Each structure stands twice: as structure tokens, then as C-alpha cells.
């Protein structure tokens, strides 16, 4: 028998070759399908899978970017500026211990207290580096203030509700008649600028103020801004030095 250009015997493996040739076409079709699957469909299925994964990722990114855009559009410029001022005033503008002494002196003046002595501690105080807030640099100063006994509590409360934020690390009050001497270690803080970050790398959580932060802003908005002189407006570091002379302002003088 001649089929597909081949001379076939009547029987192959005991089966009629006329019947066997019927299966050649379907087998070729199945083989064709496997070829089609491996050469075309399988790689395309991988591409589709990759595309869908990419779609999911991009959808999340689009949602997050939209949320960021919507939030930024919803912010009131006035409110933002108010918050900028509050957080800026909450800490020292630069690492300037003399400014801090001047600032405390100004508050003390209001309550009739005077700075008897002070020492700046550029380093840590032993046993007092107890803050958990590592992003903020502490600037402690040790002071002795003298004034009227009746006013010392008002002075302490005023210092605690001033901007920049002041924290007492040590407190010792000694009264002699109607006069008190306060020995204090007071710390203010300086926050170095944050590292530059790409806009796309930041999420909405990096922009949006949450409960306790809003609460903090409300709290410090009631604080009064204290001033330590105009040293911050000068291009100075802790101490200016020019022509063999340190230009250190005296915090005791007005």
C-alpha cells in the first residue's frame, strides 16, 4: 500500500496499516499544537504574566501618586506655612548654646530673675542622655538663676511653654527668705536637615500629619515664641572668630 509517498506493508505491528494511517493527521496536529505552545504560546504567557504583575505594581504606584497629589492639592498654603513656622520655632535654628542662654535670660527677665552664672555643655551630660529621640541634637546649658520666690513657678511654667522647646534635665531650688536660687540644666534641641529624597520614593505617610503630630502642633501653637537675640540672623556658628578675636556676645547684657 502506498501512502504519504511510502510503501507500507499491509499490517504494521499486527494492525491494518490502512487504519493506522488514519491517526497520522491527528498526531501531526497534536505535534503542531505542542510546537505552537512551546514556540509561541508559552513565551507569550510569560510576557502576559509579567505584564499583569507590572500592571498591579503600576496601579498601586498610580494610586499612591494620586493620593499624594490629592493631599497636596488639599493642603491650605496658609495652614502649611503656619505649621512650617511652628516646627521651625520648636527647635533651635542652629547649634548655638549662647543663643539658648540669651533666650532663657530673656524669659527670666520677664519674671524678675537674673542669670547668675551659666556654662554651656557642648557634649553630653553624664547620665542625662536619656532622650529616645536620636534625630535631634541636644544642646544642654547649666544655669543658676536668682529671683523672687513667688515667681519661680511661673518662670518654670513659662520656660516649659516656650518655643524653642526647653526641657529641664536637672532642677534644684533653694530659697533664702523671699529670694530663690534655681540651679538648672536646660536642654534645647537642634534638628539637622533631613537627607535629600526623590519625590517618587516618598509615600503619603511621609507627608501627611497624623493624630499625635497634629495634637503636638495644636499644643505648641499655644506656646509663646522666645527670642535669644539676633544671633541667628548672623552667619555665625557657636563662636565667631575674626583676626585673632572671638566675637562672643555676652548673654548677660541686654
Amino acid at each position, binding site marked *: 500500500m502506498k501512502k504519504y509517498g511510502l510503501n507500507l506493508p499491509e499490517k504494521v505491528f499486527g494492525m491494518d496499516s490502512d*487504519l493506522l494511517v488514519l491517526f497520522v493527521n491527528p498526531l501531526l496536529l497534536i505535534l503542531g499544537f505542542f510546537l505552537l505552545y512551546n514556540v509561541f504560546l508559552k513565551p507569550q504567557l510569560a510576557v502576559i504574566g509579567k505584564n499583569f504583575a507590572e500592571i498591579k505594581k503600576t496601579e498601586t504606584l498610580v494610586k499612591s501618586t494620586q493620593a499624594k497629589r490629592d493631599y497636596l492639592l488639599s493642603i491650605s498654603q496658609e495652614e502649611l506655612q503656619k505649621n512650617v513656622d511652628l516646627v*521651625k520655632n520648636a*527647635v533651635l535654628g542652629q547649634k548655638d548654646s549662647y543663643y539658648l542662654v540669651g533666650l532663657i535670660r530673656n524669659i527670666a527677665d520677664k519674671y524678675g530673675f537674673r542669670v547668675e552664672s551659666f556654662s554651656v555643655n557642648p557634649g553630653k551630660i553624664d547620665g542625662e542622655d536619656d532622650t529616645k529621640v536620636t534625630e*535631634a541634637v541636644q544642646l544642654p546649658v547649666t544655669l543658676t538663676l536668682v529671683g523672687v520666690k513667688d515667681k519661680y513657678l511661673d518662670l518654670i511654667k513659662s520656660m516649659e511653654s516656650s518655643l524653642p522647646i526647653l526641657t529641664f534635665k536637672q532642677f534644684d531650688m533653694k530659697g533664702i527668705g523671699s529670694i530663690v536660687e534655681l540651679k538648672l540644666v536646660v536642654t534645647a534641641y537642634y534638628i539637622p536637615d533631613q537627607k535629600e529624597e526623590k519625590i517618587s520614593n516618598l509615600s503619603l505617610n511621609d507627608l501627611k500629619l497624623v493624630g499625635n503630630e497634629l495634637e503636638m502642633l495644636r499644643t505648641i501653637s499655644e506656646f509663646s515664641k522666645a527670642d535669644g537675640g539676633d544671633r541667628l540672623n548672623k552667619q555665625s556658628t557657636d563662636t565667631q572668630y575674626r583676626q585673632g578675636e572671638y566675637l562672643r556676645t555676652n548673654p548677660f547684657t541686654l
Partner: protein
Amino acid sequence: MNNEGINLLPNQAKFRALRSALQKKINLFMWLFGLGMTLTALVVIGFLVFSKTSLNGLIKKQNALNMELKTMSDVFTTSWGVKYRAKIVGNLLADRFEYGESIERVNDLFSKKITVNSLEIRGINDFLIDGEARSDEGMNEIEELIEEVKNKQNDNLDNVNLISLNKSGSTWKFKMEVRLK
């Protein structure tokens, strides 16, 4: 037909009929299989086109949003700065012990019959008080306070420890450690 020959015609007819039925079934299978193959290929191509189009659309949308965000970079950077600082300042405030309030609570412990001469804060809520009572009534007040704390009846103090007590004339001088609740 002679007697020696065998009549094969019925068998051949049966075989042809069987072959023809099988051929039909195989043809049907091939049609269905071919159709399935084509449909599968079409579905795959459809998904491919759909996924590519969707992805391109999303990428375009994302690029447009990024461009829009770039125009708002000032607000973005400012908001980020506010958030960064607000978080730190919030932690600083949360970490801070309010001495003014505590000192006020300590001062409120005593009436005008008692004068606090010195106050040292030894730790959070721990105070060392050096004071004097100018009369026996004032000293009674101190004793009552200590009694109250010992009997856990005082709302403000957790603990009190009288370190020293001196009498000079009618003035009682005392030194005590107190721990606020």
C-alpha cells in the same frame, strides 16, 4: 464463486464501514482540536494585547501624575519637612517631663503654715523637699500628710520619707523625700 474460494466481501465491507466511522470521528476530533488551538491562540493574543495596552495606559497616567507632582515640588518638599520635624518634635514633647506641673502639685501639698525652702528634683516625680513649719499646727499638718500616705489615703503622693526633723524655738525644720503619683 467456486467452493475453494472464501467470500471476503462482507468482511471488507465491515472493515470499510469501521474505517469510515473512525475517519469521521478523527475528522471531528481534528476540527474540534484545531478550533480549540485557534481559540487558545486568539485568547493568548487577546490577553497579550490587552495587558500591553493597559500597562502602557497606566505608565502614561503615572508619568502624567509625576509631571504634575514635579510642578508641586515646593509644597511636596515643605510638607515632607513639616512631617519629618513634627514627628521628631512630637517625640521630644512626649519624652519631656513637665516639671512646672509637678512642682505645682508639690507646692499644693502644703498650706501657708509651711514654707518650702528648697526643692530638688531627683528623678521623674521624685522630690527632695527642705521646709519649715513655724508652728505646731504646721507640724501637725506634716504628720497628717505622712500618716495619709502611709495609709494610702493620699491622692497626690505615692510615697513619703521624712529624712530629718529639727526644732528651734517654735520653728520645725524638716527634710523629706516625696514621690508623686
